């Protein structure tokens, strides 16, 4: 039987707010690539923001990649490991990936290997469409993640909380 991992790629943000849609655009690009490549085991999701039910969605995955627009002082994009976070979230708008991971741990007693892809954005007005620079950053992030996800074991194996479970 062919072996594959259960991988969730989940973008969040509001595509009606310019570069806030970077996470959603990343998901669309990756979904198209996975389809073209005929890869198996991938699931895709997008929403305005993360929320408590996402703890259920990530609970049975072997690898989770969250993607979000970023205002951090970064060049174009970065991929970081998500650690469980017990701190109070300010609002449900801002349920962080760490918050979701912590909730998953508390409810389902499991932390899937989870990463956050931060893609640098610049403009946030009431308009559809990414800015030119954000598009460039998105393209770079997509190219990097295509390489990473052709061999997901590296991301899975490097995750410190990972308890390996084979999926057939």
């Amino acid at each position, binding site marked *: 039987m062919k072996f594959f991992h259960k991988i969730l790629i989940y973008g969040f943000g*509001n595509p*009606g707010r310019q570069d806030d849609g970077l996470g959603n655009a990343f998901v669309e690009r990756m979904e198209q690539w996975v389809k073209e490549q005929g890869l198996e085991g991938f699931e895709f999701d997008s929403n305005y923001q993360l929320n*408590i*039910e996402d703890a259920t969605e990530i609970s049975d995955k072997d690898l989770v990649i969250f993607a979000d627009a970023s205002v951090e002082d970064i060049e174009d994009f970065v991929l970081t490991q998500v650690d469980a976070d*017990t701190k109070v979230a300010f609002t449900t708008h801002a349920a962080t990936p760490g918050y979701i991971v*912590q*909730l998953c741990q508390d409810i389902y007693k499991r932390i899937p290997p989870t990463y956050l892809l931060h893609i640098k954005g610049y403009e946030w007005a009431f308009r559809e469409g990414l800015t030119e620079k954000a598009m460039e950053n998105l393209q770079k992030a997509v190219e990097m993640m295509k390489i990473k996800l052709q061999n997901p074991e590296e991301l899975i194996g490097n995750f410190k909380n990972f308890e390996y479970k084979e999926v057939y």
Partner: protein
Amino acid sequence: MSKKITIEPVTRVEGHGKVTIHIDDEGNIQQSRLHIVEFRGFERFVQGRPYWEAPVLVQRLCGICPVSHHLAAAKALDVIVGAGTGDGLTPTGEKMRRLMHYGQMFQSHALHFFHLVSPDLLFGVDGDPAVRNIIGVAKKFPDLAVQGVMMRKFGQEIIKATAGKKIHGTGAIPGGINKHLTQEEKDSFLNGPDPMNIDKMISWSQDALAFLKGYHKENKDFIDGFAAFPSSHLSLVRKDGALDLYHGVLRAIDSEGNKILHDVDYQDYLEYIGEEVRNWSYMKFPYLTEFGKEKGWYRVGPLARLNTCDFIPSPLAQKEFEEFRAYTNGKPNHMSMHYHWARLIEVLHCAEMMKELLNDPDLMEGELVTKGEKRSEGVGLIEAPRGTLFHHYAINEHDQLTMANLIVSTTNNNEPMNVAVNHAAKQFMQGQQKITEGMMNAVEVAIRAYDPCLSCATHAMGRMPLEIVLVDNNNKIIDKKRR
């Protein structure tokens, strides 16, 4: 020398808020204000866009309640395309929209109760902030946390099935809806494996109510006395007086229960409702024009809805409603913390209504859209989770939007939230010179009862700290605390 204490931002409400509490040298509360920085550019942004885009465009306002804006806009455009003033859709069109709306209400109320409110009840208003959150609930009461997560998920799945997708749903269009419910979707919601089926949702809704009522029994002084004050109440009601979250006529009652707005057509809302601007807040203060700015303010939302309606048209929720009304001997209920009780009765009502609709064959077949003679202006109202939501649009001969006026639910509750903050401050902070975590949270609990969405479409750029700033008359910072 008088002092000003600033609590910013308010934690666990949607968007950003700041509370300032002015105290004198003896620690007496002089005045309390909830300041809102609300983005008001949206109404100008939509001008010039084709009118049929509005139900999708308005979802840019908020990632928490996009369905409410989607449906209110669609209702306004029903009027413009000649599909009647809210009750002229095909049975399929109206019922699919109602299912979408009940799903939205159900998930929003469940999220509010389990995610934002239950930590306060389980760990106490003055409990350790490090555990007084849903993570704390998940550790100590895992079954309750699972219920919250799965109820929210169920409502989200209903939205997805009716609106088409989670982001920028397109289900409601001017004059109707663009899809039927499939057999597979229907079977999944009615008979899905536990817990993802409607019977479990009804059962859990009853459990949540039982939990709250049990807490109320043990904490009557707090639940009944905290931020309680008389006011008028406003909401839509069905023409026969029933609770109706999707459509109806506008009714308001005074603090004694007398009708002061007599079931009027909301197309004429400008005849009855004005909005006052105050220089210390971007958010306006709506009021009933007949009673003026001072006395015309009112509450909206679950508490108001259960005060204005005569009955609830679903059996289990009606039974709970009778108990709710009996608690105040049939008089209006003015207790802010009873918003939670009312909200959970609405959760049960929504679950019952979803079950009824899921068994209705009209959802799976029948005409989706109706249209008639075009008009140049339309108003759409809906009872959103947080209260009455107004959308008003006008178009030109080129089908472009020329005017948009929105009164969002939280704006309607602006004055009551300010009054509630003042009550909480006087109750918990009178005579105090030091601000504890418990005192800060007491103010926030008062605001949270109204479940405000303070800044629709705020771009969340990460976690915001809670900050308290003590300022003197000269705006000099005396003390600052952050958590």
